[in-house]
């Protein structure tokens, strides 16, 4: 079954989610990856959406476009208030926080607010929503985004959602003790953080992608882990489930749900 780099990204994200855990997911790729995990290897993964939905079982082909619409609430075991659901996160009840990023820097700081000078922005972006709250409090933070130079920058124009700030122990010193970013998943690679400097480093490559290509698409000098692994290609089972979630076989030709354009198709061996 043929797959796109977008498929590989979502599948790689889903594989990080272990069964029996709780994931606070943003809509788009994070939610798609979470529901995929739930349908395959993690049937007891509890999904939480910031609309207040706890434990939804969404209908394939009817995943929500927003974090608060009723399609996302389907099958929930609790419909909590928005503040309540974020307070569960702050209390430390959620294992994973899973968000996207318009801009991300060397230390995993995320910008979804403004491009350019914050005082007079060149581009106004949608804003934090719950992203700042999710990355401030969930135990392990996963960030999923397309791998482009303009997104992976030396320093974000604005820290909407804190990663490791200036690196080292800066995050802990700022008082952010609830959790930390551990993985960045892209359409080219899987990244992690150097345990000492807390700088992003390349840890895994999707099939057919080279470390050189990843570095070329990164706007700063990206370090490599000691052993950069080859990520397994999406399986037929994963791809079929993903297509069902997106809404039937015809969905393969559709624009992916977060509006990103598929750049290339790669055939599985």
């Amino acid at each position, binding site marked *: 079954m043929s797959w796109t780099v977008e498929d590989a990204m979502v599948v790689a994200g889903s594989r990080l989610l272990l069964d029996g855990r709780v994931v606070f997911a943003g809509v788009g790729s994070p939610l798609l990856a979470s529901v995929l995990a739930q349908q395959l290897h993690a049937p007891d993964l509890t999904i939480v959406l910031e609309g207040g939905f706890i434990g939804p079982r969404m209908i394939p082909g009817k995943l929500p476009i927003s974090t608060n619409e009723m*399609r996302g609430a389907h099958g929930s075991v609790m*419909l909590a208030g928005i503040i309540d659901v974020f307070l569960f996160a702050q209390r430390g009840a959620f294992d994973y926080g899973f968000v996207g990023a318009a801009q991300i820097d060397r230390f995993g700081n995320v910008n979804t607010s403004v491009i350019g000078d914050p005082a007079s922005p060149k581009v*106004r972006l949608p804003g*934090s929503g719950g992203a700042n709250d999710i990355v*401030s409090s969930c135990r392990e933070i996963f960030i999923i985004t397309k791998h482009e130079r303009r997104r992976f920058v030396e320093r974000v124009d604005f820290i909407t959602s804190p990663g490791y700030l200036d690196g080292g122990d800066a995050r802990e010193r700022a008082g952010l003790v609830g959790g930390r970013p551990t993985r960045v998943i892209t359409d080219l690679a899987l990244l992690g953080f150097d345990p000492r400097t807390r700088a992003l480093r390349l840890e895994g490559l999707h099939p057919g992608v080279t470390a050189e290509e990843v570095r070329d698409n990164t706007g700063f000098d990206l370090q490599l882990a000691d052993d950069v692994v080859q990520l397994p290609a999406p399986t037929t089972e994963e791809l079929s489930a993903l297509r069902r979630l997106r809404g039937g076989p015809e969905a393969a030709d559709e624009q992916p749900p977060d*509006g990103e354009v598929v750049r290339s198709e790669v055939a599985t061996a």
Partner: protein
Amino acid sequence: MSSPVPALAEHDRRDRFDRRDKRMRLDEAVQLVRDGHDVAIGGCLYSRTPWATLLEILRAGRTGLTLSRSLMCFEAELFLARGAASKLVTSWVGIGLNWGIPKLFREYIEQGRAEYEEWSHLSLGLRYEAAAMGVPFLPTRSLLGSELARTTGAKEMDCPFTGERLCLVPAYVPDVALIHVHRADERGNAQIDGPPYMDRELAAAAKTVILTAEQIVPTEALVASADRTAVPHFLVDAVVEVPFGSFPHECYGLYEAWFDHFDQYVALVDEHGAKGVEEYLRRTVDEPGSFEAFLEQVGVGVLLEQRRRAQELVPR
């Protein structure tokens, strides 16, 4: 009622005899919104938005409003284009992933034509919650280390008990909160089916509450399911029955959001910019002249289809 939050206390000192029957027409209810008011919008993004009330405020020609909401949809743009709002306080503005960020809203902010204050979702919620609790601020672990902490004017402190670093957010007291619910009695006891979002907190934080309900029911009908009552009558000032009052946005279990309408709206604004928004306002606000007339324009076929889709998702 008398609140210890100064902004609320002054308001609460006024005579607030709690009338037995607060029903009125929508055009009467929006007279409670004055030019320059700070107006909080209930629901979230395109869910349970008090859409009928918002259109009525535009019809009434208010100016200089500050709008606040947890996540804002294209109402932000309509209010800016009409000159009704000059400031927005929120955590996120967009229509939804499929439609992106409202184009004219972006222009207004990028050109500095409107004030914009961005909080995180929880920190804005805690601001309403603080006012609702009658305290001047609440602590949180959100915003720490981020630039939102700086741009919003939130403060940091070390906990006097444990020494932990905390962020403090100030109480937010809206002049008026607009809330749409599934059912209410004539006195304003309001029940919500499905997710409550931040509506309980908004109602308790605001000086004045305008409530619209899909249906007004006898009080006895609420008593049997009083655990569902999200807003008690003493917080409410006006009650208006507005079936489909969130439409074209959704109301849990009753009707799904009309995505085709969003497509058409975005296409209109993409093609014609500010003129497109004006055209939309002319068609949906000015020409119909009332929310009922707007719904007639939409047509029974669409309303029934959106109801069918909601019932499929939330079986009774």
